[in-house]
């Protein structure tokens, strides 16, 4: 599938009608989402024929994109039931099979080495501090090949340090810096839209044996306290 075609299909997806600020629900636009997944597949071979998990899938944009790029099995995970309903409708409209799980990412318990790749547009940790690191940490526990994620450019150094030191990453690389066009989503937004600088990351987890835990959220908290 061509990039333009992927972006076009993603552009037709239903988006949040009543986004929840506490979950930092911002839609992943078709432009960014298509480029994320296209890069993951064409530069790194991480999507087609793979098992992909989408953390905080929201209305399912990244799940749908993975499935359109022929991921063999896609699992979207979100805490919010309305988001999951939208994701289900979006997948059904395109006749895609996507498994959905309602779960808080920090309490997720996925065993084994079944998931190849984790993709996510996580909360940036603006509403609830540390939410972004919980997502990365869990992603690194679950993925065997790579974790793709978006984070505010202003947090770049912190993300890199924590990923390498606490999350068992053997590499943490910013693939590109993006302009995330954020339309006015919530009442507290003063401008109609605003561009924020966002990094597109690829993290590679250290190879592990089944059963070992890469890095737990509690572990992270303890280390933070000791610092």
């Amino acid at each position, binding site marked *: 599938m061509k990039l333009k075609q992927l972006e076009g299909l993603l552009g037709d997806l239903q988006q949040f009608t009543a986004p929840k600020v506490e979950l930092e629900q911002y839609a992943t636009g078709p432009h960014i989402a298509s480029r994320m997944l296209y890069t993951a597949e064409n530069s790194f071979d991480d999507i087609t024929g793979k098992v992909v998990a989408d953390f905080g899938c929201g209305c399912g944009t990244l799940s749908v994109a993975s499935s359109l790029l022929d991921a063999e099995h896609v699992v979207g995970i979100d*805490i919010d039931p309305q988001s999951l309903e939208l994701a289900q409708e979006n997948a059904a409209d395109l006749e895609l099979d996507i498994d959905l799980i*309602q*779960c808080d990412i920090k*309490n997720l*318990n996925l065993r084994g080495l079944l998931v190849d790749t984790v993709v996510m547009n996580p909360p940036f940790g603006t509403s609830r501090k540390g939410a972004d690191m919980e997502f990365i940490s869990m992603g690194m526990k679950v993925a065997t090949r790579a974790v793709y994620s978006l984070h505010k450019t202003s947090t770049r150094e912190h993300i890199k340090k924590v990923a390498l030191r606490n999350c068992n990453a053997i590499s943490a690389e910013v693939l590109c810096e993006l302009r995330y066009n954020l339309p006015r989503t919530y009442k507290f937004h003063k401008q109609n839209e605003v561009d924020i600088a966002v990094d597109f990351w690829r993290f590679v987890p250290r190879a592990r044996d089944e059963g070992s835990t890469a890095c737990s959220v509690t572990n992270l908290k303890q280390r933070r306290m000791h610092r």
Partner: protein
Amino acid sequence: MRLLTHNMLASNARGAVTGYPLKLQVVKWSTKEVEPNPEFLRGMLPKIDWPALVAATQALGLPELLPEAPPTDAELSAEGAAADEGSALRRLHRALLEIHIEEGALVCPDTDRCFPISRGVPNMLLHEDEVRN
């Protein structure tokens, strides 16, 4: 939810040791045929928890679908396996990717905490005081 997802999902309820495998209770399920991908299935086989998968097919009332012991790589690679409906490859494919659990529940093997499956989506949410430390 399909059985490949069931095969990786565990309970995080307080008191759970491994929380795995989740006991499957099925009220309603459906089948949707998709093209088998032999290379993917061969790669998956060593990563699958076979007893958990067999238990899930038994809970579905399909005791004949999978053998007690996992197929060998040679069985999965047998010529014409993808086209033969009864082959080990097709059975594995059907079990992992063609069966959709629509309504039912997943039960934590250690704590009996029940996670309902509604409209195909398991609800694994826990209250903060129910979460494993």
